[in-house]
């Protein structure tokens, strides 16, 4: 499925501000595996996701998706196989276009976009059906602009868009961090449903230790650009947030720098 081999990413290479964001990262993800990613600020979590999706190029190593080396492909080509939801609810949708139009753009992912009508009648019904799954009443607001939705509604919609064409890989970059707790819980529940429904291979960054253990099948921890922990199955089940916090201090040699990671 996804194979990351010895990936290193250096920002501002050769300057005084040089920063090694990823150090020789190796990671392998199986079909349908749902990995939660935790770590402090500057650990390299987002950089890792951005390197996989092609926002950043990498300095060494390889990234393989279904045994195909994608590390030289531009971002938009990789997007044909990778669904993404960002932390900022504004980033995932086009605010001045309708819910229906946004879904139509997502629905054509990986296909040729010609001069045929963007939203044929048959698709309209399909989009309504998909939107109804969210249980947010969006199916009755299909012609409304996305700019009129709340952050939570937008994130739910972005999630739907990321999976409307089944991606090989789903990347979630703290996609609930900017939401109210109750809405965040709802979006997380939707995430579980969507991942299960399509059996998606998923990488989810979260700042929330509890969510990291409650969701997914495997958890990895990053610190200063390195993978410092990788647990799954027996090793992971029944573990508490306290245990995870202790592991973090032991393996990173620092205390958690961030209350945000404990709360919620």
């Amino acid at each position, binding site marked *: 499925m996804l194979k990351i081999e010895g990936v290193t990413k250096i920002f501002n290479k050769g300057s005084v501000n040089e920063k090694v964001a990823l150090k020789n990262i190796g990671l392998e993800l199986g079909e349908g595996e749902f990995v939660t990613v935790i770590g402090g600020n500057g650990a390299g979590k987002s950089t890792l996701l951005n390197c996989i*999706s092609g926002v950043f190029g990498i300095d060494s190593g390889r990234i393989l998706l279904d045994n195909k080396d994608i590390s030289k492909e*531009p*971002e*938009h*080509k990789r*997007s*044909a196989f990778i669904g*993404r939801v*960002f932390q900022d609810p*504004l*980033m*995932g*949708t*086009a*605010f*001045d*276009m309708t819910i229906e*139009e*946004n879904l*139509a*753009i*997502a629905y*054509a*992912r*990986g296909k040729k*976009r*010609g*001069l*045929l*009508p*963007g*939203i044929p009648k048959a698709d309209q019904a399909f989009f309504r059906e998909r939107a109804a799954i969210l249980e*947010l*009443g969006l199916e009755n*607001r299909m012609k*409304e602009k996305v700019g*009129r*939705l*709340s952050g*939570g*509604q937008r994130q739910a919609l972005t999630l739907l*868009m990321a999976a409307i064409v089944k991606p090989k890989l789903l990347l979630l970059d703290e996609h609930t961090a900017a939401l109210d707790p109750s*809405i965040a819980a709802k979006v997380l529940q939707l995430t579980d449903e969507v991942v299960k429904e399509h059996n998606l291979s998923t990488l989810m960054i979260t700042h929330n230790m509890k969510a990291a253990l409650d969701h997914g099948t495997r958890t990895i921890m990053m610190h200063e650009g390195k993978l410092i922990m990788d647990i799954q199955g027996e090793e992971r089940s029944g573990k508490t947030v306290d245990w995870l916090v202790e592991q973090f201090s032991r393996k990173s040699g620092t205390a958690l720098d961030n209350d945000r990671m404990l709360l919620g």
Partner: protein
Amino acid sequence: MWLLLQGSLELGIIYAIMALGVFISFRTLNMPDLTVDSSFTFGAAFSAVLCVAGHPVLGLIIAFIAGCAAGSVTALLTTKLKIQPILSGILMMLGLYSINLKVMGNRANIPLSKALKVPTIFTPFADTAVEGYIALILSGAILLLILFVLYYFLRTKFGLVLRATGDNDKMVRASGVDTDFTTLVGLAISNGLVALSGAMIAQYQSFTDVSMGIGMVVIGLASVIIGEVVFGTRSLMNRLVAVVLGAILYRVIIAVALRLGMPPTDMKLVSAIIVAIALSLGIFRDKVISLTGRQAVMAGQKGGDNDAEN
């Protein structure tokens, strides 16, 4: 008075084509493209030269293609060479000025007057019953055609991502689309329309001048913004029609001002002031709303905002 109105209407219709071009770059790509000032003249230059050669219709077609080419170059400067959009436009504006002179055979202007027997798209109708209205009819027909093609195009699968590019280019790339390409197509069509408008103005006024495009981008922006403020932005059709009506309204405003004794030399200043006011209207509107507490009412008017706080 009617003559004044008819003249404004004719000019407004032709300039509306230019304004639709500006709408594409400014609104759908979110990029104020200064290439417009020169691509307008670029179109007019080809139009004039081809009229003199006896091919007024071909002049419009070539003008459109030339405009597309100019827009494509601006797009490449921005996307491939990573030059800031505003600077790319300025560079094109400057460079095209010399090229426009070359197209015009190193003359600063080309007259197409009836006395010289130069054919334009309007001349075949001279001495017929519709002569007085032919500019209105012909330009109106061309504008309507463009309006419908544009409306269809912007709702196609490709049109949707073109519109989303200005909204959120990151989301467009995440949907598997190369935003460099959507920008290229958008700027090409935008400047193609601008050049076509210039080509029609040249034939309508029977005159092409190398400096006729100066300030054109500001007039285009004024038309777009006046249209939005007065006629709304509810749907795509609404937006396109608003741009057209904005362009016509702008011409009427200018005509009335001239009638009231404004010296023609002040026109560019007035245009600049209109755009400055129009661009800042949003701020004033927010102020008024917060002062009068009419926010809920305003939101209600736009329709069903009730569960936005979820």
